[in-house]
């Protein structure tokens, strides 16, 4: 029997019952929701307390100022009593330069990597925060302040000091008027960075970059006549000819006319975090475009392109990075002509880039496959050709979906740079730490250098992870 019902007065809203809100509710639901859960919570709390209790005194008794490990121990004993333990960070005083630049990088030239590192952020900013005036201004201002301080500490020559600061201030001014134009600095940065790190004549990178100018010029002039693809091919050939035959004489001539140069520093002098960052940043920069091309190639309708991409990806992914590094160091030497003095670091860079690109290609392939077919069809139906459809419609969405995967790959790549110790490069974790532990003053030191290196790696990797989170939130357009 159904009965009619009419509400005569509306119910007022009431606060939820106490146990159902705030911290208590969270605790009850997440930590103490049942017997098993409560036991686990108690056990975990005990464990954390145990670890903290035992390691805290060690950190608390840290010694920052001592000439050797023995002296450290004496200081700890003196201040905390017999049997107390304490961390000894004093090794950082004599060794920090080796950790950052490598023990062979000339001390007088350390301002160059420092400057390159500061400018790296100025070059990254327009990519990471495209067109956002406020963020760009903050970053450039921080870079300026960083450079003033660190270049002073590294006793940079005054001319370089002045030029660097003026340059960053000019970028800062440009950010206020035309933030989009900052990308030009990003484009010029690789050549500048190369010159700062390795040195030599300034004309070498300039004339080499001019090769790209030749490529573009030939492409622009030829494309109305012979079409896009042949023009790109012709431009490429022209650029290669430029690099093979014109490059060296022109650079030499310019150098003898207007000599500007820095001391040449060979790559085997690089070490420490300088080495990790050079490998990491180069690998990240070049593996992304290569990975995109591989992913597209693997999806391609052209069987040969597809097969080549599959073989490349599967071979590189199927082999441990250490094997590839061995190949870079030793095996490649057999195949290259003996007079080809192919820099070891360059070989490592190429293989690390390939390695990351193969992983990126697979991450992207997943995203490409996840895009609805309708997106491809709509782009086709509007008359966009293959490359425009990829660039404007497909890739922006695929890249966005795969941000977490891409950043994971980048973080992995950055941490894998420590593996180059296997080919006798002095990366910080094993290479430099090993030197510290061989030092007569610091023999027997164990945890501290590893903790130090680990902490620095953590800072870099965690920043990447935070940036990826920021980017994901910013690009979220499916407001549902």
């Amino acid at each position, binding site marked *: 029997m159904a009965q009619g019902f009419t509400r005569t007065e509306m119910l007022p809203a009431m606060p939820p019952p106490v146990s159902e809100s705030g911290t208590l509710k969270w605790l009850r639901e997440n930590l103490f929701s049942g017997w098993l859960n409560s036991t686990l919570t108690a056990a975990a709390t005990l464990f954390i307390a145990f670890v903290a209790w035992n390691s805290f005194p060690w950190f608390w008794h840290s010694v920052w100022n001592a000439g050797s490990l023995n002296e450290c121990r004496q200081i700890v004993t003196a201040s905390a009593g017999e049997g107390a333990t304490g961390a000894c960070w004093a090794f950082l005083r004599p060794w920090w330069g080796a950790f950052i630049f490598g023990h062979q990088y000339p001390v007088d030239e350390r301002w160059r990597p420092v400057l390159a590192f500061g400018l790296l952020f100025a070059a990254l900013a327009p990519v990471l925060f495209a067109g956002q005036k406020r963020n760009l201004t903050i970053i450039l201002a921080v870079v300026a302040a960083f450079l003033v301080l660190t270049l002073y500490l590294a006793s940079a020559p005054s001319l370089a000091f002045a030029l660097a600061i003026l340059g960053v201030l000019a970028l800062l001014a440009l950010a206020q008027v035309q933030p989009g134009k900052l990308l030009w600095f990003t484009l010029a940065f690789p050549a500048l960075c190369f010159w700062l790190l390795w040195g030599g004549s300034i004309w070498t990178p300039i004339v080499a970059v001019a090769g790209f100018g030749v490529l573009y010029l030939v492409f622009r002039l030829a494309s109305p006549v012979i079409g896009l693809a042949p023009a790109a091919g012709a431009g490429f050939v022209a650029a290669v000819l430029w690099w093979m035959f014109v490059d060296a004489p022109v650079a030499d001539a310019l150098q003898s006319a207007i000599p500007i140069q820095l001391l040449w520093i060979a790559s085997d002098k690089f070490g420490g975090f300088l080495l990790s960052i050079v490998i990491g940043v180069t690998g990240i920069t070049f593996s992304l475009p290569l990975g995109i091309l591989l992913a597209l190639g693997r999806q391609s309708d052209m069987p040969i392109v597809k097969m080549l991409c599959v073989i490349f990806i599967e071979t590189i992914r199927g082999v441990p990075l250490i094997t590839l590094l061995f190949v870079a160091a030793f095996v490649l030497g057999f195949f290259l002509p003996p007079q080809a003095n192919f820099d070891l670091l360059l070989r490592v860079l190429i293989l690390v880039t390939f390695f990351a690109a193969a992983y990126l290609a697979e991450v992207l392939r997943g995203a490409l496959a996840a895009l609805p077919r309708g997106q491809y069809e709509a782009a086709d139906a509007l008359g966009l050709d293959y490359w425009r459809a990829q660039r404007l*419609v497909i890739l922006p969405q695929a890249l966005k979906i795969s941000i977490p995967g891409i950043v994971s790959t980048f973080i992995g790549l950055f941490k894998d740079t420590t593996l180059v110790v296997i080919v006798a490069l002095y990366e910080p974790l094993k290479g430099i730490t090993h030197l510290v532990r061989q030092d007569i003053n610091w023999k027997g030191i164990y945890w501290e250098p590893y903790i130090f290196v680990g902490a620095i790696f953590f800072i870099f990797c965690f920043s990447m992870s935070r940036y990826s989170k920021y980017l994901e939130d910013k690009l979220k*357009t*499916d407001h549902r």
Partner: protein
Amino acid sequence: MAEAAKMQVSDEVAIQITGMNKWYGQFHVLRDINMTVQRGERIVICGPSGSGKSTLIRCINRLEEHQQGQIIVDGTELTNDLKNIDKVRSEVGMVFQHFNLFPHLTILENCTLAPIWVRKVPKKEAEETAMHFLTKVKIPEQAHKYPGQLSGGQQQRVAIARSLCMKPRIMLFDEPTSALDPEMIKEVLDTMIQLAEEGMTMLCVTHEMGFAQAVANRVIFMDQGQIVEQNEPKEFFNNPKSDRTKLFLSQILGH
């Protein structure tokens, strides 16, 4: 009003399909299709599910490739020549059942993308055109939102505006209203009727028989990959010739 619009059909041929066949693997999906569409004609294609309606209109802008016969769109024959395909695609607009808007771009960017990159229209001009068509489909105020923030009916109207921004001479619609709630169907149909009145050449796969009666010059009924019957809407609905057509009409009009 619909009668007046029907007068605009010209003698010029917009689409000419002769002896066209298509297979998906072993499956003969389109069989000996012959049809001519005059400029300004509005054609409604209907038929049971799986009869090949979508495949047919997707062949017209080469989203699907046909294996035999000839398709000539606006004087350009569709072959493997990419130049011809791009030319046809930029002259033919298409509206999909599931809208297929680009979710990472705003409504305005969705509408200006192809004009800027395919037609090389300056950005400012492309935006003006886009606003013109968005006003026409009655959602100019949504221009700076993203597709995910719009209702289904609004998204479909944006999809129509996006196609119109390329100033196409022919429009293809593949069940544009069948993913929509009833109250949104009307707003999309109104937009399409308006377009028909302006003399756009339209090919429309739809089961909206009211729409067919109001604007179509011709209704084509397909079954099992073949054109079974085609006629003026009045004749088609009141006096169907084939048994299959009668059965189909009784099924969709019967309840």
